[in-house]
Each structure stands twice: as structure tokens, then as C-alpha cells.
């Protein structure tokens, strides 16, 4: 049983990790905590849903459309709004994205009403038996594999490409990077756009598993923050590890304690982290102090 739970948790965590990577990049580079991150996932899911219901494009193919689309939306959002938050007072940084999240949630309610919209694929209820009676859900497995591939890709991207290095430099020290000739504004725009694109990707991966509805963002945003803090701000391996761990914590606590309390468990973990090890696994000490 415990193997089953751990495995289930790891698969669940793979997708959390993908969402968290976007958030951790945005945070690491721009030092902005994006409270609307969950709503970005929601937007991606609505787009994926409509691609399926009107154009019959399956969610896994839709990835190719949703991801670049969300990239563009992220870029645009940065131009209009987010770049004004750099260096702004805390109250502005926090509450602009809070206001944005309110607008997105209620906007979705106004346009789509409260319905739970599902993508019905034959895959939704399939599972593989990998021996010993342990079952692995098929959409969960696909989501996990793709998440891992993309995470690896992001890691390499940051390490090897020029843009990636520019991003990492900015994360470590904004001032020095500027002095070294990094175009900070481009880095910000690019990072925010990538973070948003990754939410689009996770949204498409989630569609075969979950329905989309206006308040689904709330479920995701708090949890993603826990993952990001656990992994360390700005660290992709951290986000990955954090995501997997949170997934496992979720499945194990839901089983042994009570599904109603499972959120309480990871909120408690979150508080303990913030208190005792705010830099998480791989973050830089002091990063959480902005």
C-alpha cells in the first residue's frame, strides 16, 4: 500500500513541479510573488478545453498551441502590468496580483458560469498494472513523463544557453548582471512569459484528469507556493524535488489521516519551512528576505 501511495504521490507531484518551476523562475528573477499563478493555470485549462470542444484537438496535441499562446499572453501581461511591479512597494506587489486573480476568477465566472467543464478522453479511466497490484493511472503517467522531460529541458536551457545564463545571473544579483551588460528588461519579460507558458503546459496536461471551473486556481496557487518555498526560490531542481515531495505528502496524509485534513498537513509543513528553513532545499539564504 505504501508503495502505491508513494508512486501515486510522485506522479501527482510531477505536475505540481511543472507549475512550480514557472513560479520559482518568476520569483527568483523578478522577486515578485504572483498570487494569480493558479488563475493562469485556469486560463490554460479553459483554452485547452475549448480547443477540444470546438476543434476536437486532444489535450496532448493542444500543448503545442496552448504553450506558445500562454507565452504570448505572459509577455503581454508583463508589458501592461507586471513590469511596473519591479521595485514597487510590497503592498503594490502583493495586491496587484491579488486583484488580478480576483478579476480572472470572476471573469471566468461571468463568461463560462460555474460549470465544471471536462474533457472526456478514453484515457481518463485507464491505468497500467505494473506488477504486485500496483496501479498507475495513464494520464497521470503521461503528465509525469512530460513534466520530467520539460523540467530537464528547462534545467539544461538555463545552464547552457545565453539567455539561460542571463536569467541565472539576474537571479543571483540584479545589479551585477546589469553591470555585465544583461538587458534586464528583456530578461524579466522573457522569464515571466516562460513562467506563464509553463502554466499553460501543465494546464493541458491536467485536462484529461480534472475539470476546469472558475475557482480551480485557488487549489493550485497555495500549493504551488509551498512547493516553491520548499525547493528554494529560483531553483528548478528544488521545484522538482519539492513538487514530488508535496505530492507524496498529500497522498500519504489523505490515506493515513483524513482527506479533509490533507491540506492542513501541507500548510503546516509550509509554516515550518518558512520558520525554520525559509531558503528551502536549494535556495539562497536571504532570498526570502527580498
Amino acid at each position, binding site marked *: 500500500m505504501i508503495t502505491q501511495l508513494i508512486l501515486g504521490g510522485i506522479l501527482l507531484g510531477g505536475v505540481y513541479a511543472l507549475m512550480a518551476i514557472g513560479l520559482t523562475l518568476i520569483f527568483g528573477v523578478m522577486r515578485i510573488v504572483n498570487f494569480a499563478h493558479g488563475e493562469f493555470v485556469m486560463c490554460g485549462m479553459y483554452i485547452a478545453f475549448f480547443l477540444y470542444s470546438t476543434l476536437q484537438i486532444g489535450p496532448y496535441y493542444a500543448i503545442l498551441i496552448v504553450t506558445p499562446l500562454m507565452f504570448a499572453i505572459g509577455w503581454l501581461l508583463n508589458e501592461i502590468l507586471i513590469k511596473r511591479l519591479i521595485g514597487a512597494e510590497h503592498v503594490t506587489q502583493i495586491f496587484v496580483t491579488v486583484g488580478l486573480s480576483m478579476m480572472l476568477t470572476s471573469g471566468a465566472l461571468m463568461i463560462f458560469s*460555474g460549470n465544471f467543464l471536462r474533457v472526456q478522453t478514453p484515457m481518463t479511466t485507464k491505468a497500467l498494472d505494473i506488477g504486485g497490484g500496483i496501479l498507475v493511472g495513464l494520464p497521470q503517467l503521461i503528465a509525469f513523463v512530460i513534466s520530467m522531460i520539460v523540467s530537464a529541458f528547462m534545467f539544461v536551457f538555463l545552464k547552457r544557453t545565453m539567455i539561460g545564463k542571463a536569467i541565472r545571473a539576474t537571479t543571483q544579483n540584479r545589479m551585477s548582471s546589469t553591470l555585465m551588460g544583461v538587458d534586464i528588461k528583456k530578461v524579466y519579460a522573457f522569464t515571466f512569459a516562460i513562467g506563464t507558458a509553463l502554466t499553460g503546459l501543465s494546464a493541458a496536461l491536467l485536462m484529461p484528469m480534472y475539470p476546469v471551473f472558475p*475557482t480551480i486556481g485557488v487549489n493550485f496557487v497555495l500549493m504551488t507556493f509551498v512547493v516553491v518555498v520548499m525547493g528554494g526560490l529560483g531553483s528548478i531542481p528544488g521545484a522538482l524535488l519539492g513538487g514530488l515531495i508535496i505530492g507524496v505528502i498529500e497522498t500519504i496524509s489523505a490515506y493515513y489521516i483524513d482527506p479533509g485534513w490533507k491540506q492542513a498537513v501541507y500548510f503546516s509543513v509550509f509554516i515550518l519551512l518558512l520558520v525554520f528553513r525559509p531558503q528551502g532545499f536549494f535556495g539562497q539564504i536571504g532570498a526570502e528576505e527580498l
Partner: protein
Amino acid sequence: MKNRKKVGFVALLISLVLLFAGCSSDSSGGDSKGKSGDTIRIGVLFPLTGPLALLGNDSYDAVQVVADMVNDEGGINGKKIELVKADAPDATAAANEAKRLIVNEKVPAILGSYSSGISMAATQVAERSNVVYVEANAVSDEITERGFKNIIRVTETASMMGVSAAEFANDVISPKLGIDAKELKVVVMHEESSFGTSAAKAIEKHADEFGFNVLSIDSYNSTTNDLSSTIHKYKELDPDIVFAASYINDAILFVQQSKQLDFKPKAIVGTAAGYALADFAEKLGDDADGIFVAEAPSLPNPELLSEEAKAIQDEFLERWHEIKGTEPTGLTWRAVNAAWVLFHEALQNAESLDSKGIKEALLNIDIPEGGLPNGIGAKFNGPDEDHAGQNNRAKAIIMQWQDGDFKLVWPDEFANTEPIKIPLSN
């Protein structure tokens, strides 16, 4: 200092303007409307926004259709029924809106509320103002257990659903499975809001009375995206029957994940809400087949219905199909009953069209079983009796999804088909 003076005055002006705007909009409205004039205005309060919006709107629309039906027949002695809409997404809003309906809109009666929390808050406001409140579909027992004299509940209570579910398990499922009641292993899962909790409590109580072995009671948040841990737990416990009080999202999630994880209980009995919606069967297709639901009746055995009830049923169906294109569910019929009872039966026969008159008319109603379009009757407990205002002819019966259709299978007088697929699995 000048700045502050200006700011202060501007703020004051704005607030006064708003207050008096609110004031004037109702006083101009209130005087010319009400009982004099050619309309009768009834407040209708449901969650039209927020998490319960989907079914709140469904209820509201059903009430509107019934109002149209009565109006098309000539209304109430020539007067048309006009609905005053109120949106109450949560309990605080419910209290505010009930006040608005009573004080500003001056309605003599309110019909609501779908959610028990909303009902509890709104009915208290109504009780204090001596305005009669007709409860259409909130099922928590507490609503009619506070000794209030102004509540009339048309629908069945959570207790009645619990009794039905347990009785059905005892009378039908247990023998068909060949397992004695005392050996029967059951689990109860419920979403954690007031609906799920009150239904689960009722099920547990009556399951205990029949001697079932209640192995586990699990609560969860209805918007959860993962029930796998609960399902794994159930696989270990191996229950014969799963009782579930869920909304649509979690109901579908449970059935889908159970299939994926190969969990096959011998029977699933849901209580109303999610399991009873057309969407449920539509999304699950074959996977919904065989699932039982304790619900208010819907399309019962036609022999049960009186001529008049049949006529109401047919006309409502026709209008509903035209507007919505879907089948009404037990939830819809609850709203229909309440609206019919209030509009057609009470208002027609009220001595005076104020709260007192309407309430008296409601208490005088005596419709035998089979008289309302979904098969139940109506007779409300008096204000001094236990469960004051509760319809003691309300009933919860058992429906079953059979091949995409929602059929009434128990008890026999209501049933139009036999229950199938006991046990569930193939």
C-alpha cells in the same frame, strides 16, 4: 487641513448619495407595488453566483416556469405573479438579501434556498419579521427544528434521505446480495459542507439502526482533484456498499478514479445532489450504470399520479424541454413542488395576500400522495407541532441510472422499473 476637509466631505457626499440612492430605489418601488395593483410579488432567493451557482440557477428557473404556468392560466384572480430575484452566494449574503426582500421590496413571502447554510440564515430573518418562508430544497434537518413558526418546507429532509438509503439497502440490496444486514459492510463518504455532512449523519444513524457495519466515514472537500487515497483505503476495507453524499465534481471524480484504480463495490448509493444530475450520467456514460440515488421522486410510476398531477407534470416537462433541452432532475422537481404549492395552491386560496394569509393557506393545504407532479403529497405540520412547517408527506425514494436514463426503482408504489445490476460489477 484643507485637503482633509475636502476629502472628508467628498467621502461623506458619496456615502450619503449611495445611502439615499438605496433608500429611494425601494421607496418608489415599494409603494406602487405589493398587494394593491395587478401583480403579486414573491421573493425568490437562491445562490445565483458563487460555488453553488449551477444548481441555484436551476432551481430559480424551475420556479420561473411554474410562475409562468400559473400566470398563463389567469394568474391569481387576475393578478400576475412577479418574482423578485435575490442572489445569496453565502449565509451572510442570505441574511442581507432576505432583509432587502422583506424591507425594501416588501414581499409577503420568500421562496428559497437550495443550500442549508443559506436557508438557516435567511429563514431566521424571515421568522423575526413574521414573513412566511417556503423552503424548496435545502434538506438539513435543523431548518425545521428550531421551533420557527414561519417556515414551510416542501421537500424531504436529510433524515428522510438517510432512512430511504438505509431501508433500501436493508430491504433490497441485502437480500439480493445474499448478505445478512448485520454482516453488511458499508462506508460513507461525504463532501464536507452542510449538505454532505447532514446527509452523512442521517445515513450513519439509520445504518446503525439496521445493524450494518459502518467501516469508515470520510469527508473531503468537494472541489478536490484527487480521491485516490480514499479509494485505496476502501479497497483495503472491501465494503459491500458505498454511501456517498457528493456534488457533481466529486461524484464524477470518485466513479472515474474507482474505475481507474479497480475499486468495485457491490453497490453505490448516492444521496441527491451530484449523483442525481443529468451531467453525471452524461459524463460517465456506461460507468454510471447501476448506481442508486436516494432522491426526491422524478417521473414516477404514472399510476401513482392523480390526473391533475399528470397534467402539471406534462406541461412542466414541455416548457422545460423547450427552454433547457435537458431533463429535470429530482432537484428541479423539488423547486417545482414548492412553487406549485405556493403559487397555485396557497395564493389562490389565501384570504388575504399578506404573510399571515398566505401562511394560513399553506397550513390548510391537504394534497394526498400522488397529487404533486413528482408523486409526493403535501401536508405541513402545524406551528405548534414537532418539526413545525415540515411537509410530512415528502418522500425520498430510490432512483437508479439505467442505460443513461434515471429510473425510479423503489419503493414499489412509486417505482416504474425494477432495480438492476446488484451487484454492480461485471
